């Protein structure tokens, strides 16, 4: 699998788009989606809620397990993807596209976000 070059990545396997007007789109990586198996339920943070980098802000439930969704940055949620709530399989079929999860107006971001190459090396280890 290839991790898109224009994105940045957290060690908890979220991706973060380039920031436009202070807002970034967030999802989970293909690596994470594959590890989870078929995602069957997604609980996202609500619009207006503040999420904190490194803290749980939702849940991803797959056939065999439930996993916390972590916020890769701190900020206010400005959008949540209703399509993925209605059809959680988008997380598996299009993790970097239609399966995006939420958008955040960034207030602070950790310094240890990874580049695509760094994330690829991180998950290969």
């Amino acid at each position, binding site marked *: 699998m290839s991790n898109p070059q224009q994105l940045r990545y957290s060690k908890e396997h979220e991706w973060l788009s380039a920031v436009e007007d202070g807002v970034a789109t967030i999802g989970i990586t293909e690596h994470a989606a594959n590890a989870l198996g*078929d995602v069957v*339920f997604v609980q996202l943070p609500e619009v207006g809620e503040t999420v904190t980098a490194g803290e749980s802000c939702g849940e991803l439930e797959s*056939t065999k397990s439930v996993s916390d969704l972590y916020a890769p940055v701190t900020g206010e949620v400005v959008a949540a993807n209703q399509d993925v709530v209605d059809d959680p399989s988008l997380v598996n079929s299009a993790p970097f596209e239609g399966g995006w999860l939420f958008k955040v107006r960034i207030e602070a971001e950790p310094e240890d976000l990874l580049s695509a190459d760094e994330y690829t090396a991180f998950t290969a280890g």
Partner: protein
Amino acid sequence: MSTAPRLTALDALHRSLGATMTDFAGWDMPLRYGSERDEHNAVRTRAGLFDLSHMGEITVTGPQAVDLLDYALVGNISTVGNGRARYTMICQEDGGILDDLIVYRLGETEYMVVANASNAQVVLDALTERSRGFDAEVRDDRDAYALIAVQGPESPGILKSLTDADLDGLKYYAGLPGTVAGVPALIARTGYTGEDGFELFLKPEHAEGVWRALTEAGAGVGLIPCGLSCRDTLRLEAGMPLYGHELTTALTPFDAGLGRVVKFEKTTNEGRFVGREALEKAAERAETAPPRKLVGLVAEGRRVPRAGMSVVANGEVIGEITSGAPSPTLGKPIAMAYVDAAFAAPGTEGVGVDIRGTHEPYEVVALPFYKRQK
């Protein structure tokens, strides 16, 4: 003792197919090859191919083989005809379930006992111990067999093209020797998916060739390789118990709602068998003051119940989930659970599951969740 995982004869093939592997009872087994939902649906509508070589085969032979089995197990093995199979259990002296088993009668005085991978050694030890005084031999045949299952409505057609055996004459829960893709196999019409299908016991060195032949024969009708993940959702939909979840040493067959497998009217050993006294009491208790009962639960929402979660009603804990998963066939989360008898009737109002602090509403239903159309 080595902690390296045991590998089946098909290990290299699984890896070449891109399987996600998982530890299962000390074996490295395929969890899934692609999407477990697709694998599940393939078995329900077309066909799926499984490697079950981790299961434990134990051969029991000798003039008193059947006397030993009647004494060691709770079933009446004397009534199993040659070429037939029987679902049964092995219990402790106190009635607790050591394992659930399938016993195949392979000849006049030859039986094969198939135990769960996680209990294979326990069953082998118990049978060996219980064989004292019987003119019978208990043989560990775990390394003698690979086990491949082809399951699903297309499986008879797929297998027919590769075997000389009379599959039309092979009933459900029967097995007969034959050839598959030119090699000898014990062909059994058994499975754990709720579908028609076959389990093929063969020499490990023949496993890869048979797997490839089945893959080729099934390609045109949608057969795909399937992992243990979908096997679990298939058996859950079919209401089949899994050892360690619905069945444990803390429960008797009567507590598990499977008292019908216990046969008190045995002709051998003057009716004696291990656990008899305790099981008679358990049978009476189940009749007069039933403890918890095994029920099915269907979610109204989308959150998935997991083993160990509490079943609740009116704010009180009334039971515990033993298995839970999203059901691909029903499109909703389902679970099996032991609940207090007062809440076990299908349609009981006000039952929920405590899912990480939230009480999610669930409907109590009769098992199984899914039954194939015959």
